[in-house]
């Protein structure tokens, strides 16, 4: 298994706000935490939304009759795969 590191982005002192309160963008995406990513097979998904309810980071969203995953913030914990009764979610290794 390979650890995926996100691109390094640097900020100058002036760019850092005085408090952790800022327009979206300063916060780096957290996808680098992930070794495996969940992939949804829309043909097997019945739209029960259990994964949407269980995702601890709120990265799963409703998409038509199925669900989508925000890969910028999914940390690859695999709870969605575990909870899916239809077997519609599989974990794929990050390269």
């Amino acid at each position: 298994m390979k650890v995926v590191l996100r691109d390094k982005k640097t900020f100058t002192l002036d760019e850092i706000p005085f408090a952790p309160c800022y327009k979206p963008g300063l916060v780096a995406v957290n996808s680098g935490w992930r070794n495996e990513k969940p992939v949804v097979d829309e043909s097997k998904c019945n739209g029960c939304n259990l994964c949407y309810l269980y995702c601890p980071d709120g990265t799963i969203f409703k998409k038509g009759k199925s669900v989508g995953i925000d890969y910028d913030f999914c940390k690859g914990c695999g709870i969605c795969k575990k909870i899916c009764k239809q077997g519609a979610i599989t974990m794929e290794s990050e390269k």
Partner: protein
Amino acid sequence: MTREFLSGNDAFARGVALARPHVISAYPITPQTTVVEKLSEFVASGKLNSEFIHVESEHSALSAAMGASSVGARTFTATSSQGLLYMAECLTYAAGGRFPIVMMNANRSTALPWNIYGDQRDSLSLLDTGWIQAYAGSAQEALDLALMSFYIAEHKDVSTPFMANLDGFTLTHTYEVVDIPEQSTVDSFLPAYQTENKMDLDNPVNMGFSAGPDTNTEFKFKEHIGMLNAKRVIDECEDKFAKLFNRRYSGLVESYLCDDADYVIVTLGTIAGLVKDRVDALREKGQKVGLLRIRYVRPFPNEQIVQILKSVKAIGVLEKDISFGNEGTVYTNVNSALQKARLNIASSNYIAGLGGRNIEPKQIDEIFEDLKNEQSVVKFVGLGE
């Protein structure tokens, strides 16, 4: 202006009410209880138009206060001892979030052994959490500090939470005559809290986010600068305060007869009153002694301490605290200031008043006598007596 006979807690509550916070969130604990009792009475009777949030713990009290502050509300809480320690997690949250919450802490011993009486181990053990820490010496100063605390904490260059410490019982429950300012004067002293550090539908922001190794140092540096800026803002605040209220405080420290002194006791809180009394008595006998009362332990008055102590022969730091395995924390801080300025002064540490033990006048005289040996020692005052 009216004049009333008030306890330290009552006086502080009156100050808070005059500052008109939007939200008060607190959990009762001895010896802080009467502050929140008084404030809840003001709210219940309609004298004070604040939201009083009843919570089930101190951890929740400060969490609720942060929620209020994060929408731009002027916010107050109060606690003591174990309650302050229970808040500890939220203390760094509030400071790092730059929420200018004002908290009154009634200084009280920490368990075990269980003890409800006053010493300063609770707040001094939390110096590194990023809160401004002031120590009041009288009920009048408590009321005035309540007003000034909001001014200082909410100043845009500071934006740092403020812990106003009152010695448990010795100050919180002792009655004094206190001048209570007019609401209109307070209103002209204290500007409305304005900040960009808030949730706002017109200007949506991401709040309380994480900052990894790439930006964390910069956030902490800015937190440090905010605290250092408080030094200037405290002076500015006291100038404005003096003009409006005709009472003057002396900034980060109070120096009493130190100019020509050979021996000086450095301390904080109400015990300074007794030391001042003994300085007067010993001066009458021709002894060149003085008192340096530290009013703010954070930001720490390095420059002022050096300036005042630069020509004394020996100092004794008298404090109601012990950092086990080392020495009193105030002593460590004072010595650091002296060392950085290359001042080679005999400096001793007197640990006293733990768990509310009374400090006797003769013990102050003995400390001044001990200082004449010009050594550097750490002693527990009245041990086993």
